[in-house]
């Protein structure tokens, strides 16, 4: 029973990683691609960590897995967010269909205040 559950979780995590890699090719600009990389991959890693903890079934290994997963879930979206912010501020090319740019409006308002 445990074996069935961990097998299903493992294959699901692998498929989520594959979806994330396909999304890196399919979206239209860098900021949209960051959603594919930054959301699906941590979820897949979570599934794989749960499956590995179920399969190994020792307290030491489970604790190490929880620590590694917590670090990944904190740091990976933070890193992706920093990359996207740097890309926006350095003027990477956006998709032409985007009409609403609230961050650009806010930055320009700050510049007009002389802040």
């Amino acid at each position, binding site marked *: 029973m445990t074996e069935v559950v961990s097998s299903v979780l493992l294959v699901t995590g692998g498929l989520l990683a594959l979806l994330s890699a396909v999304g890196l090719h399919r979206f239209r600009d*860098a900021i949209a*691609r960051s959603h594919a990389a930054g959301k699906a991959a941590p979820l897949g890693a979570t599934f794989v960590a749960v499956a590995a903890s179920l399969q190994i079934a*020792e307290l030491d*290994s489970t604790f*190490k897995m929880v620590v590694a997963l917590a670090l990944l879930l904190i740091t990976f979206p933070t890193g992706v967010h920093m990359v996207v912010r740097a*890309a926006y501020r*350095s003027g990477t090319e956006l998709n032409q269909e985007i009409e609403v740019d609230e961050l650009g409006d806010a930055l320009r308002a700050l510049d007009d205040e002389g802040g």
Partner: protein
Amino acid sequence: MFEVALTIYFATLAVAATLAIARIVVAESIPDRILGLDLLVVISLMGIAGDATRRDGDVFLDVLVVTSLIGFLATVAVARFIERRGSR
């Protein structure tokens, strides 16, 4: 049962890593390459976790912790570089 699942899982990870490397090679800006490299780090972590189940998890779980922290450090460093130099 679980061995079959491990085989399918490693094959899937290999395809995903190939796609990420292709994204790194054919990219139009530096942020795209960093996203591909970040995804490659996560895929490596998932592969290490799958391999740890085969070895009943000894030292390789420590490697998981260290690798995720090093990947975060590299990402932040390159993000700083882009903010200063532009994303060409």
